[in-house]
C-alpha cells in the first residue's frame, strides 16, 4: 500500500535527517527512484519547487513527493513521517537531558557526521549535475548549463543573492536560451 510505504520511507529519512535539509536530498532521491515514484530528473524539479516554497527544504520535498505520488493523504503521511522522529527525540531530550548537545559522545558523533553530511550533499550535486546534463558530452547545451550552474554558485557566494532570486533568474535564462 502506497500510503504506508510513503510513511515508512519518510519516517526512516526523518530519523536520520541531520545537518540541514540538503543532506537529505540524496536519501530522498534514492528512495523515490527505487520505489519508482519519480525519476531523478522529475525529482530535481521537486527540489526546485521545494526550494521556492517557504520552509524547510527536506520537509517540503517530502510533502511534494507525497502529493505527486498519492494526493493529499500522501502529502500528509509523508509530512508526518518526517516530523514524528524529531518530535519523539525532542520530547525525550527535553524531559531527561537538556544539555544533550554538550555530551561528549554526541560531540564525537558529530565530528564524523559533519564530513559525511558534506559528502552526501556533494554526491547530490554530482548526481543532479549528471542527470540534468550539466556534466556530460561537450556541446553548447552542456556548456551553457555549466555556466548557469557556475554563475548560481558564484551569485550565492560572492553576490550573496537569495536562492529564490537565483532560481528565478535561471528560469528566465532557460526561457530565453532553450
Amino acid at each position, binding site marked *: 500500500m502506497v500510503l504506508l510505504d510513503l510513511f515508512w520511507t519518510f519516517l526512516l529519512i*526523518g530519523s536520520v*535527517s*541531520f545537518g*540541514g535539509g*540538503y*543532506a537529505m536530498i*540524496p536519501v530522498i532521491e*534514492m528512495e523515490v527512484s527505487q520505489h519508482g515514484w519519480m525519476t531523478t530528473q522529475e525529482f530535481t*524539479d521537486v527540489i*526546485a519547487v521545494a*526550494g521556492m*516554497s*517557504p*520552509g*524547510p527544504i527536506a*520537509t517540503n520535498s517530502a*510533502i*511534494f513527493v507525497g*502529493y*505527486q505520488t498519492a494526493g493529499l493523504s500522501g*502529502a*500528509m503521511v509523508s*509530512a508526518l513521517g518526517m*516530523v514524528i*522522529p*524529531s*518530535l519523539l*527525540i525532542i*520530547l525525550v531530550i*527535553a524531559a531527561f537531558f537538556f544539555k*544533550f548537545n554538550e555530551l561528549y559522545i554526541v560531540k564525537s558523533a558529530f*565530528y*564524523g557526521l*559533519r*564530513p*559525511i553530511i*558534506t*559528502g*552526501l*550533499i556533494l*554526491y*547530490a550535486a*554530482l548526481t*543532479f549535475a549528471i542527470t*540534468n546534463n*550539466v556534466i556530460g558530452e561537450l556541446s553548447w547545451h552542456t556548456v551553457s*548549463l555549466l555556466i*548557469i*550552474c557556475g554563475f*548560481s*554558485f558564484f551569485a*550565492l557566494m560572492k553576490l550573496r543573492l537569495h536562492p529564490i532570486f*537565483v*532560481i528565478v*533568474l535561471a*528560469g*528566465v*535564462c532557460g*526561457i530565453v536560451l*532553450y
Partner: protein
Amino acid sequence: MKTNRKYLLQIFLSFFKIGPVTFGGGYAMIPIMEKEVVEKRNWIDTKDISEILAIAQSVPGAIAINSATFIGYRLAGTLGAIIAMTAVLLPTFLIVVALSILFIFVQDNPYVESAFVGIRAAIVGIIAFAAYKIGITAIYDKTTLSIMIISTALLFFLDIHPVLIIIVGIGMSILIVKVKRLLGYTIKLERNDK
C-alpha cells in the same frame, strides 16, 4: 505551567504565523521565531534561545520545526510541543500542496519546460553551495577530509544507501575519536575548539 485552552491557542497562533513569511530554507524562520517568543511574547529568555537552537540542530529534522517543538515543550509540555510543531508546519504544508497542484498544471507548458532546463542547472549550483557552506565548518583536519572523500566515493561508486552510511558513520566517528584519544592525539571536535 498554564495549560488552559487560551494559552495553547496563543502558542498555536504565534507559531502558525511564522511560516508563510519565510522563504529559502528553515534557517530563515529562526530570527522571526526568536522575535516572536523572546521580544513579543516574553516566553523564553534570550540566553535560552541559543541553547535551544544548538539542541535543535543536533537532533534529526529541520531546525525551524525542531526549535518550535522545543519551545512548545518548554511552554506547555508534550501537548505544547505537538501544538507548536503542527502550527509551524501547517502553513508550509498548505503552500507546498498548492504549489504541487500548480506545478502539475503548468509543467507541460513549453515556457515552463524551458525555464526548468535553466532552473535545474541552478539547483545543482545551489546544492553545491550548500555543500561548500557546511564543508567550511566540517572539514578541518586529515580525518574529516578523508571521511568526506570516502563517504562521497561510497555513495557514488558503490551505490551504498545513505542511511546506512549515516548510521555506520556515527558509530565509526565515536570509535575514531576514542582511538585517537587513546593513542594520545589531541583532537578538535569542532573547528573552533582550542
